[in-house]
């Protein structure tokens, strides 16, 4: 019998492509022959916009890259500019930044976990993850009045000190966090069907992951110990005691478990930061007009999606001459094609889920 493959256009309007990603699938029945991601539907030209904005105006755009880990993005950009200007950030601000970035990481991974299991069909798991994430958003709301795009971390520190009762609220959240992880492990990780759906699927070898410049949980699930927080500690990350969860196989399951482990480690960092946090100012003396000296700098941080880098070229003017963002989700998304090949249509969505792209970041 003569058979032929067919093309299936998945997205940009599709319930589970994490935004406006388009994947052109070539299918043989339900088996994937090729999965070609097409990106750019959310391209806003942030890099170009930034060239015509002053530095303080640039900062809110960082929040809008990976809108699930806004704090981490802003942290990276602030540190890049501070590094070029040689600004010393006050101790307390450093701690607040770490707390915010790590809480943001937990929230981002909760979305990752929830959407992954939701895409496998366990909608209750999704709702549970979203419900627990709400606690973190409430904490952010308390600290800066926003829930998604915060603009809280600024050049030289953070915009305002933590309000009264925030530390207690955060500790309360951390106390409940163990229970949340317990729920995830019981309800989702322990589920036979989820294990069958994810184990042994889309195996990525360590060599390939490195060659493809993968980063974050995708790289570490393949067993490569590369975390910017450890490899090149920025801010005050060298003061904290935390582990880098690693996978062994590099399949979808490992990619999920690594993220679960990272959530626990993030909570561990927040606990230590809360204990060590000193009193004091939260904003360094930064000139009103931010004009970094001419020069160029590459600074990268460990975002929830991976290795987020900023390449900043300054010509001494109040506007960046060139700001390039190395978006981990963009680079990781290249892997989609080779990971999907030979698996079934139903695997494409969980594989995409474990790559964890956020289209705001991919398309920049």
């Amino acid at each position: 019998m003569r058979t032929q493959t067919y093309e299936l256009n998945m997205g940009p309007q599709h319930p589970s492509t994490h935004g406006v990603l388009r994947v052109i699938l070539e299918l043989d029945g339900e088996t994937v022959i090729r999965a070609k991601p097409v990106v750019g539907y959310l391209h806003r030209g942030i890099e170009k916009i930034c060239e015509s904005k002053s530095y303080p105006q640039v900062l809110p755009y960082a929040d809008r890259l990976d809108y699930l880990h806004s704090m981490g993005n802003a942290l990276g950009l602030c540190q890049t500019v501070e590094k070029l200007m040689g600004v010393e950030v006050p101790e307390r601000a450093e701690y607040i930044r770490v707390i915010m970035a790590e809480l943001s990481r937990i929230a981002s991974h909760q979305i990752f976990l929830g959407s992954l299991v939701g895409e496998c069909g366990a909608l209750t798991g999704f709702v549970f993850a979203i419900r627990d994430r709400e606690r973190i958003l409430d904490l952010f709301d308390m600290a800066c009045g926003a829930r998604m795009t915060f603009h809280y971390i600024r050049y030289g520190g953070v915009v305002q000190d933590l309000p009264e009762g925030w530390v207690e609220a955060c500790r309360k959240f951390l106390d409940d966090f163990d229970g949340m992880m317990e729920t995830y492990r019981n309800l989702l990780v322990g589920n036979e069907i989820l294990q069958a759906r994810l184990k042994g699927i889309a195996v990525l070898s360590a060599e390939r992951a490195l060659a493809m410049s993968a980063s974050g949980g995708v790289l570490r699930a393949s067993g490569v110990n590369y975390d910017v927080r450890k490899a090149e500690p920025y801010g005050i990350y060298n003061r904290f005691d935390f582990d880098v969860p690693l996978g062994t196989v590099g399949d979808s399951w490992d990619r999920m478990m690594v993220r679960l482990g990272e959530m626990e480690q993030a909570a561990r960092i927040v606990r230590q930061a809360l204990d060590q946090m000193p009193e004091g100012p939260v904003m360094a003396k930064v000139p009103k007009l931010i004009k970094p000296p001419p020069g160029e700098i590459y600074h990268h941080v460990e975002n929830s999606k991976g290795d987020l880098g900023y390449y900043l070229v300054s010509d001494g003017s109040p506007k960046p001459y060139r700001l390039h963002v190395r978006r981990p989700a963009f680079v990781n998304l290249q892997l989609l094609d080779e990971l999907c090949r030979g698996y079934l249509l139903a695997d494409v969505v969980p594989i995409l889920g474990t790559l964890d792209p956020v289209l705001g970041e991919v398309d920049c």
Partner: protein
Amino acid sequence: MSENLFAKLTEHQLSDLAGLGCQLDGEGACLLTVPAERLLAVMKMLRDDVASSMNYLGDITAVDRGEAGFEIIYQLFSVTRGVKATVKVKVPKDKPEVPSVVSLWPGADWMEREAYDLMGVTFAGHPELKRILLDEDFAGHPLRKDFRMQPRE
């Protein structure tokens, strides 16, 4: 903690790099400036050499320096040895072309496509050098300094 690449290299290797036409700037940034035609040889040496083994390509980007042409900047890391380096290639304005490093790091694929799309730098030897973020029929390369932005109607 990442260290400076040059501290790890032997005299012999440094002179090899210099022989390939590299300018080494060890102060602070650990910057190698490489002529475009030697890029692949230098990159291959950096990747495969036991002493450096820069096995992780962090980033590729391009900067428009106006009349001075374009700079293409590569960020390299060694995951195993914890060293980093920045490789810079300068190309003239009228012929912005560098060899593609996809053969060394397949992950460079989309990074090079993005640089081509937004900056108009061509990467010779790239398997599929097409626009990635912008529309196929978009005219011009928006991150170039001479790109005229359309006023909003």
